[in-house]
């Protein structure tokens, strides 16, 4: 195909990516890392942040405590009631929300640039002075329990939960962040208050501000509401125990009545984001189940066999050994046929190196899509958060094309050998 002749060179691809010259990074005295980057093409602003507390600190009988505590933060603070918080936010057309993960509690919000101050004040009040008003907490509990009741009917989520239980047997990753009905029911208001008091604090916290504001002003606005936060009681999250890989393939089924489609999740634990071979695994994963129309798996299971509307592989990365898995939704009659086709592809991926052409395609895809992933303020904020969370260095996105190009087919094969042994997989199916 001919290259286009109508584009301009007004914006240079290399320099549109964040780097040390346009990311502002500051560590406050209390340890909070603040990152900021301006985008004056946008009249709005996005914040994203994380605290180093998550479900790993949940007690066994109260799984979901970190998640519940995060969602409860905005139900009332020492400064404002639930009504006042949301009246302030929604009157400005702004949004702010917290969520709880396994390792971290994160938050995200957006507002018109003129309203950044109120967004930060509300976020800081929520983290520092939540009240967990009993009436609001009961209301939230009913919502969480309804969410879990809906989850129990969701074939995709239930397959994923069952898969985690197989591949993370004996490891904390086997538990869902949002707990179970009995554990959510067991959590008291005092548990939430105590959890916040002991675990929320500035140490390990990161916040990124991106949008139509000068970085210096963003820094100042963050410092104003968070620089004096101290919590001497803040405890560090427990260390992540090691994981025993499966000795053989295990297949499990979750029965859910009355469903037209069954969901399959299949795979194993993959590399952590900071593993030196993560990028090779990620490129391999792209070839396996993403590139073009869902990679090799899409070609085999969707395009050739017509068995599934969706099939894709995913590599979670993250702080620990997140899953490297394949997910598909198929007619209950076709579950075995689809699994066989997926296993065939995994066998090939495990035995033979990917072709140089396949790798070159995925490398080009990774390099080319980076600017598109940063089209929005939220995309840039996520990219900045990743720099800090995984200690990648402020110049990472500028170095990225070279890092991607340096991966070889042999390195990809090595990661397949290390993580995706077809004889040692977890396979979970949920449906009727």
């Amino acid at each position, binding site marked *: *195909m*001919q290259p*286009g002749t*109508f*584009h*301009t060179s007004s*914006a240079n*691809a290399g320099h549109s990516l964040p780097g040390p010259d346009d990311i502002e990074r500051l560590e406050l005295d209390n340890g909070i890392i603040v990152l900021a980057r301006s985008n004056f*093409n*946008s*009249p*709005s602003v996005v914040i994203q942040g994380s605290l180093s507390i998550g479900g790993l600190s949940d007690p066994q009988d109260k799984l979901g405590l970190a998640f519940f505590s995060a969602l409860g933060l905005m139900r009332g603070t020492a400064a404002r009631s639930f009504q006042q918080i949301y*009246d302030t936010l*929604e*009157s*400005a*057309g702004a*949004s702010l*929300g917290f969520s709880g993960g396994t390792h971290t509690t994160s938050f995200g919000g957006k507002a*018109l640039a003129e309203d950044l101050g109120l967004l930060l004040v509300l976020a800081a009040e929520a983290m520092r002075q939540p009240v967990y008003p009993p009436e609001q907490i009961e209301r939230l509990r*009913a*919502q969480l329990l*309804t969410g879990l009741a809906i989850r*129990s*009917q969701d074939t995709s989520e239930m397959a994923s939960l069952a898969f985690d*239980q197989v591949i993370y047997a004996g490891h904390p990753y086997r538990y869902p962040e949002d707990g179970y009905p009995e554990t959510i029911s067991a959590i008291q208001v005092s548990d939430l208050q105590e959890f916040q008091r002991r675990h929320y604090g500035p140490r390990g916290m990161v916040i990124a501000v991106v949008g139509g504001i000068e970085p210096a002003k963003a820094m100042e606005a963050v410092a104003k509401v968070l620089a004096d936060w101290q919590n001497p009681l803040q405890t560090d999250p427990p260390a992540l125990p090691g994981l025993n890989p499966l000795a*053989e*393939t*295990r*297949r*499990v*089924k*979750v*029965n859910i*009545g*009355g*469903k037209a*489609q069954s969901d399959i999740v299949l795979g194993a634990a993959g590399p952590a984001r900071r593993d030196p071979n993560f990028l090779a695994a990620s490129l391999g994963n792209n070839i396996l189940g993403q590139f*073009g129309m869902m990679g090799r798996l899409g070609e085999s299971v*969707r*395009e050739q*066999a*017509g*068995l*599934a*509307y969706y099939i894709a592989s995913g590599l979670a990365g993250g702080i620990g050994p997140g899953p490297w898995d394949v997910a598909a939704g*198929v*007619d209950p009659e076709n579950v075995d046929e689809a699994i066989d086709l997926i296993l065939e592809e995994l066998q090939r991926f495990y035995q033979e190196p990917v072709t140089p052409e396949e790798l070159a*395609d995925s490398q*080009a895809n990774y*390099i*080319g899509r980076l*600017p*598109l992933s940063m*089209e*929005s*303020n939220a995309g840039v904020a996520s990219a900045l958060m990743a720099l800090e969370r995984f200690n990648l260095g402020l110049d990472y996105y500028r170095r990225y094309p070279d890092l991607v190009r340096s991966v070889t087919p042999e390195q990809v094969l090595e990661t397949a050998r290390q993580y995706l042994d077809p*004889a040692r997989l977890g396979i979970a*199916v949920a449906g*009727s």
Partner: protein
Amino acid sequence: MPPGITRLTLSNGLQVLLKEIHSAPLISHWIWYRVGSRNEHPGKTGISHWVEHMQFKGTPDYPAGVIDKAISREGGYWNAFTFLDWTAYYESLPAASGDLALRTEADRMVNSLFEEQEVESERTVIISERQGNENEPTFLLNEEVQAAAFRVHPYHHEIIGDMADLQTISRSLLYDHYRAHYVPNNAVLAVAGDFETAALLKSIRELYEPIPAGSNLPPVQRREPPQHGERRVRVEGPGETTYVQLSYHAPAANEADFYAMNVLDSLLTGPSSLNLFGGGISNKTSRLYQALVETEKAVSVSGGLGATIDPYLYDIHMILHPQSSLDELLETTEAEITRMQASPPTPEELGRAVKQARALFAYGSESISNQAFWLGFAEMFADYDWFTGYLEKLAAVTPEDVQRVAQAYLRPQNRVLGTYVPDHRPAPEEGYSVEEAEG
């Protein structure tokens, strides 16, 4: 036309809208066809969506998978959407690769193959897509509500189509549908991003202008007659959660009442975002959230008004609180609607709705893809001026307008009340079992 926008019609009838944006080295190319489930009748339901799938199955010059890979290699992404009124295809790419999008779309406007064997393999893919939808109580409920709301108008059926038609539609029906509707005089091309207009226009003329115009299509004439009494539908199925959907016949996007209806939606259930990318905001201070969720009659409530060619529906979705009852939920909802009809909202409430809309527009304008989306989307039911004048029109809505549309549209006689109720089937054997172990 606002400054910065180029708008023209090619000799074959193709409408073109271009917007230069030089903030990032990206380009977003959209082609819109004025065909969707609105243009289907029984026996052919779901055919527009299926044609959309077939458009990814290759042409003589670009066999299936070739474009996929070419776009991915450039780091771009592409996708397509079939809606009630339209089908849209887009590519967002690094600006230097924009030519790829032009060539792809010009080619598949006329040259798609629709090979028999590809039709058959896509049949099962689409059936699988529908089965995935059928797993969701909200889909099952919406399908029944929509069917009850439209007895005559083709908005009657779901976009994905009825299973009966998905099992029987033939290659020739699909191909005829494609050839009839995929013609330049039934399409809008919208491009936004980092290009020079004159140069881009030259490429567009070279690639698109040789495509001959097709016959004019017959208008959709089966108007829905007024509804004269509340209709109720009940769906039973697995689970322990009760879902409620209240759907009121609502004004079309180009009717004057649409703006007041949008403000009403904002006050009742929180602002709806019409952006395809960019997300919305929470609705916890909306009247129905306050009346239902804060009193523990519902665990959630949301609402939505779509921009459509013909009058469609204003939907209110609720999930019943496990400790409440359907009667209580409905009584409280009715009381809130009556309050809206009885007295106009305050000017402050209206001011708030306008600020919320302004913020949502700002979030949407961040992305070049979303800006290109709006260029074409607005043309499907009005024109681009509809989009640029939207906030002004919204700001001109008075409290009395809101009261009036509440009285006119939110009458029980004008709605369908749908419920999805658990059927309390015996639970399958203990949820989780080890099926087999392999060595």
